[in-house]
């Protein structure tokens, strides 16, 4: 823990510069925001209906789910050039990169399938039958477990990455949208958009450990819809996008209590932090902008106009 903190502050002092890359679902573009100037510095054309977005571990490659192009595009983020496309199955929406930096686990929303692609051979390694409308994807830090959540089946599907087979299926509340492992993989969290809850699973037993719900003053509970979420340094707190309630909740990851609500843009969807996690960038689909949150003060400090229907966000450092 001490070593981790030291590492963070070291990084913070040497490499503060960075970029947030945002997919604009209805513009077929990516907006690149500087985390220093908080302005859009570049816009790239990509495939149709870009949604999921992530970098590999050394940030030399950017992967983009181009849902309506039925492909995952691979971009050189330094040149902005699309290098090639990976076979992804139909309608890739969200994905996650295995810690081996080689295997992408992709949710094929229209086909009730999770596709595993080897990014080096560019071949499909496995296709796994999951529930209706797979969406949320996560992989454990040790790489042994991958998760797919299915929106209409309302389950988290637990995939053994060794055999590429399901070993558990756990029910969650309606329309699960996003999944994350935290605390070195000890816990796995799932958000349920229509159920309005966050469920915490104990990874070892795949059993429910806690469940949180949200109340935003002046907003009907039906419209408080958790979608994307990310954790602060040390996994102490989660910031949870609450969709059409236009708020982000701050959840204590030890007590599982909601501590704060922050007003952001309309229909807040996904998010990512800057390098030292002092700032959080949320994509707001309906208002077409990104809200910058001061993490310590828990305040929105700026809105940045991007393209139409910003969806995913991914950070990369540039100062090193």
């Amino acid at each position, binding site marked *: 823990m001490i070593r981790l903190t030291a590492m963070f502050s070291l990084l913070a002092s040497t490499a503060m510069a960075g970029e947030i890359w945002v997919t604009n679902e209805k513009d077929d573009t990516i907006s690149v925001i500087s985390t220093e100037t908080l302005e859009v510095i570049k816009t790239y054309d990509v495939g149709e209906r870009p949604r999921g977005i992530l970098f590999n571990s050394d940030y030399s490659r950017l992967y983009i789910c181009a849902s309506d192009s039925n492909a995952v595009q691979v971009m050189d983020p330094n040149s902005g050039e699309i290098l090639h496309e990976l076979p992804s199955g139909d309608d890739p929406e969200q994905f996650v990169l295995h810690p081996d930096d080689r295997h992408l686990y992709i949710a094929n929303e229209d086909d009730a399938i999770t596709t595993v692609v080897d990014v080096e051979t560019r071949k499909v390694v496995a296709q796994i039958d999951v529930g209706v*409308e797979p969406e949320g994807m996560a992989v454990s830090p040790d790489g042994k477990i991958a998760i797919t959540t299915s929106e209409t089946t309302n389950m988290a599907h637990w995939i053994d990455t060794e055999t590429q087979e399901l070993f558990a299926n756990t029910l969650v509340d309606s*329309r699960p949208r996003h999944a994350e492992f935290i605390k070195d993989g000890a816990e796995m969290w799932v958000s349920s958009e229509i159920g309005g809850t966050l469920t915490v699973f104990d990874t070892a037993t795949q059993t429910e450990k806690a469940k949180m719900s949200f109340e935003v003053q002046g907003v*009907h509970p*039906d419209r408080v819809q958790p979608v994307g979420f990310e954790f602060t340094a040390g996994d102490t707190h989660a910031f949870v996008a609450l969709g059409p309630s236009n708020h982000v909740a701050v959840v204590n990851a030890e007590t599982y209590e909601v501590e704060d609500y922050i007003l952001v843009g309309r229909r807040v969807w996904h998010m990512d932090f800057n390098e030292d996690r002092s700032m959080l960038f949320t994509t707001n689909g309906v208002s077409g902008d990104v809200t910058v949150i001061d993490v310590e003060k828990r305040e929105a400090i700026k809105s940045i106009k991007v393209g139409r229907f910003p969806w995913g966000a991914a950070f990369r450092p540039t100062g090193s």
Partner: protein
Amino acid sequence: MKHLVLGALFGGALAVPVCAEITLNIGYLRVEQPAPPTLSNLDPIPESNGLAGAQTGLADNLTTGKFLGQTYELTVAEVYEGEDPLATARDLLTASPYLVIDAGPEDITAIADLAEAEGAVLFNTSAGDLALRDAECRGNLLHTLASDAMRTDALAQMLVKKRWDDLVMITGTHAADTSYAEAMRRSLTKFGLSLEAEKEWAFDADMRRNASQEVPLFTQDFGDYDALIIADEVHDFGRYVLYNTWEARPVVGSEGLSSVGWSPVIEQWGAAQLHSRFEEEHEREMTAQDYAAWAAVRTLGEAVTRTNATDPETLRAYIMSDQFELAGFKGRPLTYRDWNGQLRQPIAIAHPRALVAQAPLEGFLHQTNELDSLGLDRPESNCEAFQ
């Protein structure tokens, strides 16, 4: 024979341990209703209207069920004009206590009153009539189709919001038209609006050729108004009124800006995924009745998933409880009203090319649930079967 085997399965399911394989059989009954002739043949009602939705719901249930050892079957029966729907309904109810019904309102209540239907769970997916949610309600009958009143309340909210309060209406002569017009008058009163004038559509000429001459004259004596409401639920003449009115005014109601339970133009809230699943399977667009049948089958699926039971007492209790919620691609969880069995749901206000708004509109508040600003609210309903 098949029915007997199923009966045995049901009997066994109650006694066996939680993780054992269970099967839920759902009956689907279509009672053919005479379709009145319409001036245009541009939009024929699909043969599989409703049933296709039930099949997509079944496929969704099966995908979920395979992870839980739960399977589903749909037994479909069709009754043609002149045949006795009650005999077929009896057969289906003997095989399974779950029945999705596509029929006229009188047939629906007659089926609900059968001795075999006692303790069953029936779904009305075809009749929007207010009476079925009011004094004519049945305790074993749920409604996944939005009532006419929910749809006209949604449109009335839109009229209030747009401040289109000087209103006139043209009503067709079919039962569905007059029933819609009645629901509309009720909604206008509910939201503080009224009609300045009403006319009945009683032309027997073919409007495809002379709409441009007849409709301006027909609408001329309305004088000035903000919006023209069309009550033409069989879609006979309404399409010829648009752009032919004397005054340049919006047309709303059965044509033009319509309030509907489902529409292919709903893209948000994941609806695009349901459309693409449906269209891939059935090669046509999903109608409001398809949606109602889908919701009925998914309601049962959701209840089985969460309770791992197949008996109607357990499933009905769960469906009517606070725990139940159906993710219905309308942006908020769908639940059932415990005073008349109506599925609470947002209503789309749309034209054929785009969604304009979704009711309940912002600002129409309610003490418990804004969705109950649409249709018969608890104090308004004379339904006693649910008490």
